[in-house]
């Protein structure tokens, strides 16, 4: 299945998988630096990752070409989604939507 190939990158992140996904979602509406990403994720997901977890995930996303650093602003480096990152995010969200639909349908019939 092509979709599984698309999402394989995030599957390989281990314990950094969840922060990596939320970072991609955060960057989907534009570039942000680490602090802004942390605050944004806290707002829309209700979780606040520690700095070690956040930068562990950022390092993995950057090394796999899913995000890229922009020129530094003051002491902060904003990051933005790459085309590969956008594709991986779309694939993962589609996969999650499909799982959610099945789960909701089954709960409705329970």
């Amino acid at each position, binding site marked *: 299945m092509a979709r599984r190939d698309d999402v394989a990158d995030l599957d390989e992140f281990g314990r950094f998988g969840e922060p990596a996904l939320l970072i991609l979602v955060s960057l989907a509406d534009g570039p942000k*630096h*680490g*602090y802004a990403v*942390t605050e944004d994720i806290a707002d829309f997901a209700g979780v606040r*990752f*520690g*700095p*070690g*977890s*956040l*930068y*562990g995930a*950022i*390092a*993995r996303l*950057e*090394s796999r070409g899913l995000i890229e650093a922009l020129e530094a602003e003051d*002491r*902060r*480096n904003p990051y933005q989604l790459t085309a590969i990152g956008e594709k991986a995010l779309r694939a993962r969200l589609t996969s999650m939507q499909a799982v959610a639909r099945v789960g909701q349908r089954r709960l409705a019939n329970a």
Partner: protein
Amino acid sequence: MTRLIKLYPPAWRRRYGRELAELISTQPASFGTAIDLIAGAVDAWLNPQSSTASTAADPKGAKPMVSKMVQLRYAGDGPNLTAADHLKAAAVTIGGTLALVLPLMWAIVRYGKDPYLISFTTVSWLVPYLFNQRYTTLKGRSGRVQAVLIGGPAAIVIAIVLAAVWLSNN
């Protein structure tokens, strides 16, 4: 709290250290943050390939660091582990365990159920298991690094056993 950034590999610090320090300065210091940073540092050492830090520009120190990181990466389940390495590791684990367990069991039979002997018999597999890392995760590392990463945990295990038995007897 920013001092914990020193636990990260130098190349990683060069790439992300400034940003990480900036982020840490925005958060209240807490035990949870400290644990998170320590866990992140351990991950950065164990998985250098998971960041672009190894290619971060540093004309003076980049090459040796890249070399060390590649060595560290390949020291795990990397492609330079041969079938012979796996056999050696298995032989050390099995042979070492037998070499420790059999004399200890003989001593239990000979001298009775001494709690120290019983405890060391129970954990005796762990020491050879640590030593097999010479052929797996620590392959290619210097003798000093191997001594620290094998001898340290082995000493800790022995100390824990001694302390546990002493505490149960007193």
